[in-house]
């Protein structure tokens, strides 16, 4: 009885599809968009996004209500989320460079604790779940190369990364421009010399964390481990770098802290001297060598390459198992 109805439906509703296949780019974009959307279905992801938006709104609200020179409250809150360090140094640097300094402080490390957690969460499940449930077989039974599969997954995380760095960066930037009543020519100049470099710095941050998360995700089948490891990386590396600096007196201590390393790159890109910046935000003076930005670039670049290598090797190695 059941079988009769199935065959009937088959012959009735069966629509011939003229078999015009779309190309590689379409398929990669499909993976990225569908995966990003699917991740949104998770309650944890929703919660983290909500927290992220709340922080953003509070940051803007603080900026508007307290003005740019009086922000000193909620320091611990700021420190916890690594975002919007209160620019207590502003009175000292008021004047021409104020805009840059405030902006740099607003950006913080450009990645909040929540961002890392969220990207860790989204990214970790992407490949490890596929491995655990063998879905990768289903992907590869489509005309999809392993590299296309990885790029697609990368794209899914990238969508999150972009929204978490570029949206806040954009909001801070234009809020600040308006608050400081900058002229149009100044704004135009800032867009080229500050805004775009800030976006670029966000991109570098994002690339690093994405690659890290995905390569971890391809090593283990357990998404949870990846999320935990990723979340632990920031605090651990800060701790480690402080030990290097204060206890062991290592010159390149900043290399042991990913957030500080990324911050140095960010400052360099938007045109603030890292030494000046840290001198004004930290209690103790920090000696940074003039080439620190270059070293950080190199270091982060190498890290990204290493993670990428691990990722590609893991994917290559994937013999399909059932």
């Amino acid at each position, binding site marked *: 009885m059941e079988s009769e109805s199935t065959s009937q*439906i088959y*012959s009735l509703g069966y629509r011939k599809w003229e078999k015009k296949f779309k190309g590689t780019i379409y398929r990669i974009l499909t993976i990225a968009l569908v995966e990003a959307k699917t991740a949104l279905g998770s309650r944890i992801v929703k919660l983290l996004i909500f927290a992220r938006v709340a922080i953003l709104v509070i940051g803007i609200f603080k900026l508007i209500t307290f003005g740019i020179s009086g922000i000193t409250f909620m320091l611990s809150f700021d420190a916890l989320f690594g975002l919007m360090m209160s620019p207590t140094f502003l009175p000292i640097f008021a004047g021409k460079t104020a805009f840059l300094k405030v902006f740099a402080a607003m950006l913080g490390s450009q990645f909040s604790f929540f961002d890392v957690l969220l990207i860790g969460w989204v990214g970790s499940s992407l490949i490890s779940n596929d491995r655990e449930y063998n879905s990768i*077989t289903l992907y590869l039974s489509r005309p999809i190369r392993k590299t296309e599969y990885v790029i697609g997954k990368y794209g899914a995380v990238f969508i999150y990364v972009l929204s978490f760095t570029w949206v806040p960066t954009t909001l801070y930037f234009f809020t600040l421009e308006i608050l400081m009543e900058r002229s149009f020519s100044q704004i135009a100049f800032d867009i080229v010399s500050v805004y775009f470099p800030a976006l670029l710095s966000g991109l570098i941050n994002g690339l690093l964390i994405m690659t890290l998360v995905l390569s971890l995700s391809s090593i283990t089948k357990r998404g949870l481990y990846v999320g935990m490891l990723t979340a632990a990386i920031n605090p651990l590396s800060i701790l480690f770098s402080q030990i290097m600096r204060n206890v062991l007196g290592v010159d390149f201590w900043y290399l042991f802290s990913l957030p500080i390393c990324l911050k140095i790159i960010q400052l360099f890109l938007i045109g603030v001297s890292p030494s000046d910046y840290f001198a004004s935000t930290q209690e103790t003076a920090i000696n940074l060598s003039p080439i620190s930005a270059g070293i950080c670039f190199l270091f982060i670049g190498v890290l990204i390459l290493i993670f990428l290598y691990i990722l590609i090797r893991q994917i290559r190695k994937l013999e399909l198992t059932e």
Partner: protein
Amino acid sequence: MPDVIIEAKNLTKFYGPIKGIESVDFEFHGGTLGILGPNGSGKSTMIKCLIGLLNITEGESYVLGYNSSKDARRIRQLIGYMPEARCIPLDMDGISVCTYFGRLVGMPKADAMQRAHECLDYVGLKEQRYRKTGTYSAGMIQRLKMAQALVHDPDLLLIDEPTNGLDPVGREEMLELIRDLNRNGKHILLSSHILPDVEETCESTLILSEGHLVKYGNLNDLLTKDREFYKIKVNNPETFYEILVNDGMMEVSIKDEILIIQGDADVPSKVIKLAASNNFQLMLLDRERYTLEEFFVELMKSQDI
């Protein structure tokens, strides 16, 4: 469409030192082909080699005229593959999975969505299609796997163990689906270790054992040829056994005092003659057919020797 749907030449796959399949040769001219073999005989390995999911160690194969290693991506546009393992992503609903994998073949979103609904209707997944696949029963997963293999309207379906985990009703529906697909002009390659599955759906069969091709041909031919045997009961079976063997009868065995002889229609007359000339008392001479199961077991046994 080419004449030869699937062609394997000396197809060999080793997983490191572990043999998957070795030197498999066959041509499939369309219709329905069942791959039979016990667990670990290389059925899944063969299917994966054909569509280029695994790197072939030696030899080559062609599917719909395309080389499995070089044009794997072209092949995968034209075939539908229903894998053996679960494979379905957990955190999506059925309709999304089906649409998604349609799009991944290259179907535009609207087409993929409409075809996904049609295919899910066809396999009989109703409102469940809006539920997360994590909540699906084994039967629903099998149906969804079938739907995703159909969504891009392939000419050839490679189906790995379709009745796994299905209850008798579910199994019958799945087999009817496969027969119906064949009636609608799809070529079908089905793998199973359950003989009746193949018997009920396939015209021809390919039997694998420990990675080797044992038999390949029309199912009915194979069955009528080798499936008959004679049961003989005599007063002194051991001695009569010797006599039969000495007379040149190759395929004789004794089981529970009963002699079993494989052979064609001249066996009875020979046996009667031998019994009479040697003074044996013939108590039973019966022509019987193996059930498919027994046939299969016998075939596997003869393969060991």
